[in-house]
């Protein structure tokens, strides 16, 4: 009896601490929202002025920020790059993972597996300068080149995930289809690809989050294309905000809204995907 009451008390303490801890996350977000709505004249240096709500909830800052950063075009580029990268990754990486996972006995395929997976250790810093040259030479210094690079960069991780997942899928399933006379290619798309659905979700989540928030690749590759992704637009237009922090914060908030909406809708899948990707 005494034990349960101390346990309840302990849990209450944990609860209080967790709520207090949440302020480290909520406070920055609260500040971001109120600064984005305020006018420069409302920005005072005393503490009550800093924390107070804006006088009016006007959307003017957001309208202006959209114009300055060409928001809709950047959003379109970001969506295009993220969606195409995810789709291509699921198709290409699952095929590669399947091939390598089903040929564990072959020296050649084992070498290919190690070759690709060891790509995980290659930091972008060493590829950056040669890739900037190479994409320019090939006419790929644009969003399409960025997508191709992402498919290559996330290949080691995703191929490892897919070929690892394949261990759980019995060969007998494919053999049954083979007896019915189906080709390997057909069997893959009809049977294996649908079964790997949980892994597709994991790959989609980790690839999408990484691509959506990436700055370095588009910065290096698309520098000359006058195109922006959402994060890149924040970087490139930073100087135009000047000391108008309200405008800057409206722009920051705008760039965070799409991923926040995505998170609110698919929170469970995102948490599962991130954990699976890291732990597997």
């Amino acid at each position, binding site marked *: 009896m005494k034990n349960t009451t101390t*346990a309840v008390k302990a*849990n209450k303490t*944990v609860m209080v*601490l*967790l709520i207090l*801890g*949440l302020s480290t*996350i909520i406070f*920055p*977000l609260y500040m971001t929202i109120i600064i984005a709505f305020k006018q420069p004249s409302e920005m005072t240096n005393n*503490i009550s002025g*800093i924390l107070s709500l804006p006088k009016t909830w006007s959307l003017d800052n957001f309208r202006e920020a959209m114009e300055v950063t060409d928001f809709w075009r950047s959003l379109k580029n970001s969506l295009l790059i993220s969606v195409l990268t995810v789709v291509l990754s699921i198709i*290409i990486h699952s*095929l*590669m993972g399947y*091939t390598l996972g089903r*040929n564990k006995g072959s020296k050649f395929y084992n070498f*290919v597996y190690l*070759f690709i997976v060891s*790509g995980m*250790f*290659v*930091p*972008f*810093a*060493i*590829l*950056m*300068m*040669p*890739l900037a*040259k*190479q994409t320019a030479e090939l006419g790929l210094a644009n969003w399409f080149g960025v997508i*191709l690079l992402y498919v*290559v*960069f996330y*290949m080691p991780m995703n191929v490892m995930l897919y070929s690892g997942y394949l261990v759980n899928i019995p060969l007998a399933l494919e053999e049954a289809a083979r007896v019915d006379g189906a080709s*390997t*290619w057909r069997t*893959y798309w009809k049977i294996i690809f649908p079964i790997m659905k949980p892994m597709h979700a994991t790959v989609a989540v980790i690839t999408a989050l990484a691509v*959506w*928030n990436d*700055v370095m690749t588009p910065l*290096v590759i698309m520098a000359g294309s006058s195109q922006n992704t959402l*994060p890149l637009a924040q*970087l490139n237009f930073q100087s135009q905000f000047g000391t108008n*922090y309200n405008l800057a*914060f409206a722009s920051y908030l705008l*760039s*965070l809204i799409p*991923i*926040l909406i*995505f*998170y609110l809708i698919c*929170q469970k899948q995102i*948490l599962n995907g*991130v*954990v699976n990707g*890291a*732990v597997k």
Partner: protein
Amino acid sequence: MNIFSQKNDRKRTFLFITIPILALFVCFNTIPLIRGVIYSFTNFRGFGSYDWVGFRNYADLFTDARVGKSYLFTIKLAIVTTIVVNIISLILALGLNSKIRAKGFFRGAYFLPNILGSLVVGYIFNYFFTYIVPALADMVGLQSTSILASPSKAWIGIMIVCSWQAIAMNTIIYISGLQTVPEDVYEAGGLDGATGWKQFRHLTFPLIIPFFSINMVLSVKNFLMVFDQIMALTKGGPAQSTESISYLIYNNGMAGGQFGFQSANAVVFFIVIVAISVAQMKFSGSKEEQL
């Protein structure tokens, strides 16, 4: 006959899949890697003609004060941030894994920082460090300058922003580790008098060591490659005190005319990353075997 042709079909399909994908990988990973190594032996400025200089870039690297400083800064940042992040994440994960109400809500909320883009998060914190923190410090009568403006303290700002996002990720991995610990382990431990710190030290922690290793590898690698936060918070300043290796390679290699020299820097950086990753895996592998 039929089985024979099906075996052939299987082999052909596998090759048909492998060749184009492998070609793509070689084209955008292996070839640029080799080109990077080749450039590191030249005095290429990023444009125009260039000459072979042998190992001169490498020799210069070890005497270049700016490069040395960036390695010291990056390694210091990676070590301190890894320690801070893993301690806080473990405590937070223990809290989030205890019997509390609204568990799902808390886990969701605490993970939020990780999904936000680190560049924008960096810009937001930049403003906080520059205006809000000094105003708060002023109120309680402390000195009121931005830590980002101080060469000796700017790295703390970067550490805080990196931690804010990384704690979310590491916590969620620790939680999934804690969930693998069966309830009866605690019950049995409780009978032997293992509670509180003792329980954590001797029961919980040994069981989640694989997850601890994952977090260590993830943290160290990510923090060594830090870039966005530097770009958003300090751009390497003040007085080049916060130039990370990636930032230096980008800044001087892409725009500063040191293409060849920074390629050599990148090659060394690559070797460092590989060495650290391999060492960590060997170390955590041997730790797991002992259990």
